[in-house]
């Protein structure tokens, strides 16, 4: 009896210390994340310009955002960009990681080269790409003109802006490469050897060994890429200001404009909550379907 009591005392104590040690993180989360999140939910039911006092208007902000064409245009742009960027960056970075996993001389230099873009702040790389994309004096068009190829207006044309930003995003996806690379180095060698003994070629090994073992990492990268793409802001803010003709009016940019340019804080908060729900649904769908295609070693494989 006394033994048990002593044990629970120790347990209680370790709980206390445990919570104490993680308390800065929890307090920080409540103060700087949870608090503002709940506050934004509250102001989304109000009309508020940050200067005058709030006016409760119920669901009017939400009704207005479903009515406003801009919301749908912004969602279209954001989904288009996500649908283009996520598969492109997931697949391309995977193959780059495979190449960087080989034992070539100077492989570290190549790995560094591919990782460098993701250390560069997005603001800086946006400014640099603005020069590259410049229709009259930019690097890309100058290159094309040398070979007498047709030239483009890239981020400055309606049709070109989203694909151009996608290309830029793939260029900057070095962090995905690093994560894939770490995963590839963890693929057990004996699996390849066993497959080789069975007479498997490169493609069979790739499809039956590499891809299944890597699937949790692909899952992680895809989830993060979708969340990031849905929240794209900086590139459009710096490079295009949502133009031309709202062709790059990303949803986050719309929120920013409504909040800080037109001082409709309540409306912007309502917009943010819609984005939050959309991302939550997308992530949930991904998690539910993941059971079908993600292979975890310790679970004994696909069911």
């Amino acid at each position, binding site marked *: 009896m006394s033994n048990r009591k002593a044990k629970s005392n120790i347990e209680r104590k370790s709980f206390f210390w445990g919570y104490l040690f993680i308390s800065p993180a929890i307090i920080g989360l409540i103060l700087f994340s949870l608090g503002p999140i709940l506050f934004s939910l509250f102001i989304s039911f109000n009309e508020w310009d940050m200067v005058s006092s709030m006016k409760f208007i119920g669901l009017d902000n939400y009704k207005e955002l479903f009515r406003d064409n801009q919301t749908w245009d912004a969602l279209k742009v954001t989904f288009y960009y996500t649908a283009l960027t996520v598969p492109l960056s997931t697949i391309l970075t995977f193959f780059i990681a495979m190449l960087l996993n080989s034992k070539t001389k100077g492989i570290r230099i190549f790995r560094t080269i591919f990782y460098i873009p993701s250390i560069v702040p997005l603001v800086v790389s946006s400014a640099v790409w603005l020069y590259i994309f410049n229709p009259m004096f930019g690097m890309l068009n100058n290159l094309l003109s040398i070979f007498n190829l047709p030239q483009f207006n890239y981020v400055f044309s309606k049709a070109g802006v989203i694909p151009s930003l996608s290309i830029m995003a793939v260029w900057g996806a070095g962090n995905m490469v690093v994560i894939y690379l770490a995963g590839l180095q963890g693929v057990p060698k004996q699996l390849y050897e066993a497959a080789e003994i069975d007479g498997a070629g490169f493609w069979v090994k790739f499809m039956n060994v590499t891809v299944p073992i890597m699937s949790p990492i692909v899952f992680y990268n895809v989830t993060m890429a979708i969340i990031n793409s849905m929240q794209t802001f900086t590139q459009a803010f710096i490079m295009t200001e949502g133009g031309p*003709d709202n062709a790059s009016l990303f949803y986050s940019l719309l929120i920013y404009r409504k909040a800080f340019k037109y001082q409709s804080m309540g409306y912007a908060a309502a917009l943010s909550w819609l984005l939050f729900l959309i991302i939550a649904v997308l992530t949930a769908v991904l998690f539910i379907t993941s059971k079908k295609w993600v292979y975890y070693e310790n679970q004994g494989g696909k069911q």
Partner: protein
Amino acid sequence: MKKILIVTLSLCLAFIMLGCSKTDNKDNGSAANEDKVKLQFYTWWSGGEKDLGEALIKEYELLNPNVEIVQNYIPYGEYHTKLNAMIAAKETPDIYFINEFLVNEWGEKGIAEDLNPYYEKSGIVPKDTYFDTAIYETEKGLWGVSFSLGTYTLYYNKDMFREAGIEFPTTSAANPWTWEEYVDAARKLTVDSNGKTPNDEGFNANSVRTYGTVMPTNMNYITALLTTNNGSFVSMDGQSLGIIKPESIEVIQKIADLSLVEQCAPSYEVMLGSFSDMPVMLMNGQLGMFIDGTWMLPNFQNENFEVGLAQIPMIDYASNAVWGSAFQMSRDSKHKEEAFEFYKYLSDYNNAVDVSSKYGVSIGNLPNMISTVEDTELNNKWTEVFNKDMAIVAGDILNNDPVIGECTFIKNYASIVEEGIMPKLEKVWLGELDASQAVSGLDNELQTKLQGAWQ
């Protein structure tokens, strides 16, 4: 052991708390500073304008040793966001610069102080002192006076004109170029990689080396051009849209046709991508002319480039729009007397003229004071420090009964014009719709946003 742990932890927590708490210690300067009245001053000035502003403040502090102006320069893009946040936190600066279409709004919202009683006390009658367009007043009060005025001019490269054999437009604001003369000159100045102009057979619009001009697609340039054809974005009373009138539509179409039909301006896409620094392109001979604000002048002066200046081309008759952003005084200011003294000094263009000659900084904008233009002695002083050509052109514009920019008196202007109308016009610049198609239906769409006019 335990004690050490607790002490360490509580120390850690204390440091975290310290890190979070606001540090207000930077004001603890020397003893002499403590008697000084500190005025918080916020503006978005940069470049040449900032140089002038800093000189003005330096001079003011020399004249008033008891006052210290705490200067804060925030880039325009973030300025109003920052100010909004400060107001929400009840930390409105004593004196702050403010966008022309927000002056009256913020006045009536109770953020700014009514300046009428202060002007009365100081014996200055604003209406007799400043140009009409410089005064922001509603029934409830006087909310600000433009720091200086701005208008729009045609900048051109004189060498390129001489080479192409084009006669300079006159400096007289009453007799500007017609739109046709402007287009004609622009076509002569546009040259492709084979040296051909749009007037020659075999001109290749896809490999233009030099453009004659660019489409003036900025909201403010359009405001000015609309006045030359009796057009507007919004009607004077703010009750209906002016942009759907045929006169306004004609202006919009003519602007778009510079590129779409006349081929003397880059396409909208190329303009967005390659024409971000037009003064430099004009000086390099990559661009023949462009329409822009008077405040662009220091860009040329600082490079000692002799730029050509003229009144904007007219579609029907000579006209131009004039306005200027203003400073406001916070209603919550703790030093209103001192703040107003500084306000008065700042809003007196003749002080800027004095400072300009004393410190050798250039002025880009136009006088907001009637005396600078009408008083012979003050006028001489001004033209001495101001660009000669600009003094002639701009002085003439000011004396020719300019139109007050509609952005200063239409309620809800940003929401109607910037958010409502301008995005529709992008389809015209891109050549997807013609101007009348683009604006049709706008009156229904924007009806709820039209809330009348100030004054």
